[in-house]
Every structure is written in structure tokens, then in C-alpha cells.
């Protein structure tokens, strides 16, 4: 059993302590915007925020939560896709297949929470998500546009 504060709501779920947060979010809470990609924190498709910071939820056991953390998923980033990162992503039409984009958007928005004016070096170091369609060139432009919109 675990209690989570997720996107502003408190949810109690019946689940084993070692269940990765990713699967709790997808299968117990039912929010499927957060994706499974690798299960070993390599690809970043499962990125969410815990207290505003980006976390790869596929290797984060739900039992490690105290219940006080504010968890944010792509569904809770904004009510109406109005977060500056989402706006920038729409303006540049970034997603292709889109499967990695919730994780990409959460990684970028999480970075901007801590580093509101990232340099290219900051972006290189902090955005390490994989996108096989290859949106990476537009992602860099999108980050810069999101900074302008913030």
C-alpha cells in the first residue's frame, strides 16, 4: 500500500513496495502519459517530476516515497497545454511519433525549474533522453523558445 500526491491529488494504491513508480502511475493510478522505454533509466521516456525535479520513474521504487512528495506527470504539467515548454513544442511542431515526448517535455520543464536560462552545455548535460525518430534538433530550439516564453 502506498499513498501518493500526484498532480495535486492524493491517491492510495494497493501495490508492492518494490514496484517502480512508473508502473504505479501507469497501472494503479491509470495515467498512461508517462511511458515505458527501457526500465533501466537510460532513455528517459518515463521522466516525471518529484518536487519539481526530473526523475526517471522506471527505477524509482514506490516504497522510497514518504507520501509527502509532490509528484507531477505530463497530465499535470498544465491544465491546457499552456506550460511554456508545451507551447514551444506546439509552435515548433516537435513530436514525430511522440512516444518519447512526455518524458522529453518533463525532462526539459524539470531542468528549467532549476536552471531557467540553460546554456547549451547545461542542455547537453541535463537532457539525455533518447528519441529514435530524431527530434533532437528541434528539441534544442524548443528549449530556447520555452525560455523566451517563460
Amino acid at each position, binding site marked *: 500500500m502506498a499513498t501518493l500526491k500526484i498532480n495535486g491529488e492524493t491517491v492510495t494504491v494497493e501495490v*508492492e513496495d518494490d514496484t517502480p513508480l512508473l508502473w504505479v502511475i501507469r497501472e494503479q493510478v491509470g495515467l498512461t502519459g508517462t511511458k515505458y*522505454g527501457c526500465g533501466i533509466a537510460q532513455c528517459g521516456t518515463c521522466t516525471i517530476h518529484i518536487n519539481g525535479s526530473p526523475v526517471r520513474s522506471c527505477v524509482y521504487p514506490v516504497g522510497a516515497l514518504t507520501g509527502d512528495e509532490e509528484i507531477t506527470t505530463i497530465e499535470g504539467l498544465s491544465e491546457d497545454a499552456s506550460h511554456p515548454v508545451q507551447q514551444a513544442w506546439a509552435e515548433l511542431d516537435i513530436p514525430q511519433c511522440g512516444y518519447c515526448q512526455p518524458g522529453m517535455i518533463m525532462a526539459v520543464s524539470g531542468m528549467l525549474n532549476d536552471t531557467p536560462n540553460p546554456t547549451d552545455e547545461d542542455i547537453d548535460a541535463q537532457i539525455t533522453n533518447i528519441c529514435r525518430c530524431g527530434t533532437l534538433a528541434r528539441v534544442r530550439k524548443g528549449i530556447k523558445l520555452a525560455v523566451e516564453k517563460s
Partner: protein
Amino acid sequence: MADTIHLSRRNFIVATGATGLTIGILSACSQPTGDTEADAPDYSDLPPNPEVNAWVHIDHDDTVTVRIARSEMGQGTLTGLAQLVADELDCDWDKVTTEYPTPGENLARERVWRDFSTGGSQGIRGSQDYVREGAAAAKAMLIEAAANEWGVPASECTSENSIITHGPSGQTTTYGKVANAAAQLAPPLEVTVKDPSEWKIIGQPKPRLDTAEKLTGKQVYGADIQLDGMLSASIKQAPKIGATLASFDAAAVEGMPGVQKVVSVRNPFGEGNNAVAVIADTWWQAHKALQALPVEWQGGVDFSTAEFEAELDDGLTAEEAFVGNGGGDVAGAFANAAQVVEATYNMPFQNHACMEPMNTTALYTEDRCEIWCPTQNGEAALAAVSEASGLPIEQCEVYKIHLGGGFGRRGAPDYVQQAVMLAMEMPGTPIKLLWSREEDMIHGFFHPTTKGRVRGALDADGNLTGLHLRISGQSILAALIPQALQDGVDYATFQGLLPSGVDPRLEDQTLKYSFDNFLVDHAMRNPPVRPGFWRGVNLNQNAIYLECFMDELAYAAGRDPLEFRLAHLQDSPEAAAVLQAVADRSGWGSDDGKARGLCVMYGFGAYVAACAEVTVSDAGELKIDRIVAATDPGHAVNPQQIEAQVEGSFVYGLSAMLYGEITFEGGEVQEQNFDTFNSMRIAAMPEVETIIMPSGGFWGGVGEPTIAVAAPAVLNAIYSATGKRVRNLPIKDQNLRDA
């Protein structure tokens, strides 16, 4: 939670199928982009309009739903095909939405939507003619319906932006108002599609129709399907090539949380069982139990990629080889050469590594089997459902879901058959089979391994007088579609190197260089590894063999690599134009000290070129600074999406060049996740400038051709920077200063 995707099968259909009531079509793919008017009239008491024809449905409120037969996997075809229809239809683009017809519906309607297969960069170019004709027919019927209502000749009516106007009287009506009457009319016997000069929506950089839901997590992928009473399954397939399941101890895991059933799974392509799966309440429970399940395998092939190299090497110099192209006197050219240049290149296996692992959700009952599936080939998936379930195809159905990447992998039906087999274990219960990343890596349909040995003869003036390109390695067709071989020859192996005017099906994969004395041949050497069509397919390695070697020749001849290439492109002004364009834009030939490399190819009916700029540090670290790419696809339907495909091609192509390699030891894949099969991250991503130069008059592909020029351009730039040739891929562990 309120946003939970939790739909019964019926709800799924009703909630997403704009015209579900009419013909049972479902899977809405996108929503109209225009604003909803607050004071829009209420049509809810009117019966829904029938479709105008198979391609177009128009609601009372003028919402146009375009039926899209091809799959959307990121390549943007959904939007491009909708642009074709909307332009020909003269409808309001802001009121366009899309949906997938089902493969079952296509079968029932005598394949009115024709081919669902999505590959070979064919989505638009392979269907543009009949799609546009379908839209033109719908427009003619709408106009005729309006003309009938007014009692005027149709020839006096015009259409624009979903409004029909009778010129002489000035009367107007909308598509939505006449759609029902139009649907009752006989389709025109003949239609004429617009001349490209009349296009208003085709050629425009329209935003994708499917972006909005991809920004909020609302886009449902196959992995996200949730049906009433659904259970989830994780599967483990024999890790060794050709091995079968010997035994497993279900009792060891049956008491674990959520576990419902542990089952063996038949090999979709061979004899016996080659996998075991756990079905549980949730996927994580299934997967955890599967990891704990004691399993024994038996048999299999002790295949090693390291050992297979000897066979590839043998093929490089073997007497016997299939001829793909050639002419003149090659032996004579070499006998009289002032200089002979030779190089051998080595290409490893690649995995597609779609971000969304393979998955299918299946529901089986005694008399019906349905799947929800991200597939590149809906009709093949439908056939697979019928075959696996043993039910007549008319009692089967496939609901297509947007793909989380395809790249050629999702044309294969292995995961479809497995899901059906699992569903048959629990009739009436929907089962979602989701492969783990490890399963996805180990059980790919791999881009084949080949080597290329190229020899060139130069005369005393540095002119290329003879060329022999020998490919040694695996044939995809021999393994997957042996009936497509012609007298044993896999002509697709020669993609980008083929003669023109021989096989119309391969006319889009021909060599554009003119050589006097040359030979291109293939020594087929097939490992026991199942190959597949990997984005760009055989064009990728052939571009490396040809274009890295053209670079080597140019330097050996003491000539400029641009000029050297152009000297052999005199018969292909389009190929010369894209090459010249990247050279001009990149600053080729300037004395700014930058290390640059070129590549030009023709494939999938399009002319593509790239110029790469790189820096190699004293320590041998590579930085790809800039790419200039040009493409001439004939007609450019959506330039901003072509740009996106070109940019993305460098990520896919350069990921393979930098890191991509699947190796086997003891018959088992060694790279099982992204830690060992890496993919490019943003830090390694160069700036890409794309020049789109549609010369018109033909329809070329977009999604694949540029992949092929990515690696050769960068490899040639590395040589320019270091004076060393990299001929073995991937680069990952090589020091570029010691290469």
C-alpha cells in the same frame, strides 16, 4: 482518476469513431485544429451524414474526416495525406480531422482503401494518385448535389473552403449541408485532379494534425490500451537463435501477486514452443513473476558474429556472385590502370529500437478475434490474427493505433500472433502483451550485416576508368520473402546501385552516377539471424560503400571530391543539383579550415545529399558540428515535415554510425538495452540545415533516403579532419586519431 483511459471495447469505438455509426470505422487519429465556435448551430437532432465516399466524410458542421489507410508512426504521412485530400476537395483545412479505416472494413469493402502497408517511403508517393482522385470525386459529388438542389448546371458552380457558390445567382451552400445528398449520387466516371500550379494546401508547411495530444500525454499508443477486464502479459522468448522451450516451473510463481496464468507460446514462424509468458493483473506483476520463473531452453544455434566475419570475407573475393549492375570492360580498365585503389568496409547488425516496445492487445472468443495494434501493415496483422486464431478472416478485426516508432520493425506480425495465442488461453478476457525492452532488443528483425569491397582504377590524369563494388552478406528477401528472389538474386540488395530501365519496381533505387567500366555484384552470405527492413534498408550500407569510396578515389586522384563526383553525374542533373546545393550552402571549398565531407545518393525515388562539418580533437573525440542536407523529392507536400524527417534521419543514421551494433555470441544477442545499444543524445546532435528543392514532375520518398547520406558524409569529413579512414562501424570504441 478522471483522466484515466479506461474504455470498454464499445466505448472505445463510440468515443473515438466520428463516423462509427455509419460503417463501424474507428480509431480517430486527430482532431480539427480550428477553434470551436461558441454559437455553432446544434445538429444533434439530425441523423448523422453518411460518408460522401470511402475517403471523405463530412458532418453537418462541415467537419471533414479524411480516411487514412497508411499508418502514422512519426513520419507525418497522416498530415500529408490529409493535405492531399483537403486540397483536392477544396475544403476548409481548419475543419479537417482524420481516422483509420480498419483492415476488416477494407476487406469487407473489396479493398476500397487499397494498400495499408506503410514502408518503403511509399505512404504518400504510393497512394497519392488514387487518394487525390477519391477526393476529387467527392468534390464533384458535393457540387453536383448543390447544383441539383438549385436546379442549375454543375458547371456553373465553384468550390472553395468548403463552400459551393453558383456564380450566376450568387447562391452559396456548405459541404456539410449537401453531404447527405452527395452521398446518394453515383460517383463520377472520370475525375481530373488538379495541376500542381493549382495547389493551395499541398506544398504548405501545415502543422501536424496529431501534435496536440502528443504534448499532454493524451495520445494513446498500443502500450496504453486499457479495456474492461483486461489482463497484461510479459513474454520471454528463447534467448538463443532457434532454441525451444524445454520446461518451466509455473508453480514457483503462481502464488506471486496478481499472477493469473503461466503459459507456453508457440513459435509464430517455426516448430514448437519458443517462449513462455506470464499473464497477470498488471504488466509489472507479470514481468516480475516472469523474471522469477525458472525456465529451461533446449537446442539452438551457436552463432557468433565474430566468427561469421570469415564468411563475409570469403564473399568479398569469391568467384561466384550475383551481378546487379555493370558495363564496359572492367578487367581491361584495371589492367591499364595507373593507380588502383581498394577499400573494404564493414557494417554490423542493427536493431530498430522503436521507443515503444512491441505490443498488441487481443480479445478472443469462440467466434471472433480482435486486436488493438500499432502496426505498419494492418492487412498483414489481420491475416496474422486469422492464422493464429484459426478463425475465418471475416471474423477477425484489427484496430490500428498510432505507433511509438516503426522504422520497418512493425511490419512483422510476430508479436501479433503471440498476443492472439495468449488471448486464446483466456477466451473473453482482453490480454495486453507488452514486450520488455530486452525482448525488443534480442528478438529484432535486424538490419543485415554486410561487408563491401570496392576497387577503383584511375588513369594517369586521375580519371576513374573502372570500378568494382562487391557486396558480401545477408539478403533480406532470401530470409523473409524468398519468392521475391529472381533466379536466386535479391535485387533489393543493390538499392541505389541498380541500372535504370530494367525493373520498374526498382526504378526508384537506381544508380545515378555514370561509369564507363564497372561491376556491382553480391556474394550472398546468409547467417542464421532473421533480418528485416530497417529504415533506409540496403541503401544505407550501399551509400557507405559507394560514397566513402568515391571520396577515397577523389583524394587518391588528387581531385576535389565535389568536382570528382560531379564529373560522373552528367546524366543526372537532379543528383548534381542537390550535391551542388549542399556544397554551396556549407561553404565547400572555402579556406576556413573546416573539415567537410560530402555524400549524394538517389533512393526511394528522391535525390538527397549532405555535407557534414566535424571537429576531431587531438584525443580523437569526434564532434559533428553542422550538417547541410538537400533533398529533391519531386513534389514536397509538407516542407516543414520533410525538414523534420531529414533532421531525424541524421539522428537515426548517425546513431547507427556512432554506436549501433548487435552482436551474437553463442547464438545470443549481447546488446539487450540502451546501455549497450546506445542512441544519439542531444549533446551529440549537430545543427541541421535542410534545403528542400522540389523539382516537380515526380513523387519521391522522404522518410528514408536521407538516412543513407548521414554516415558517409560524416565519415568523409572525419577523413578530412584526420587523414584516417574509418571503415568499420560503429565508431564507438575506435580512436579516430589511430583509426
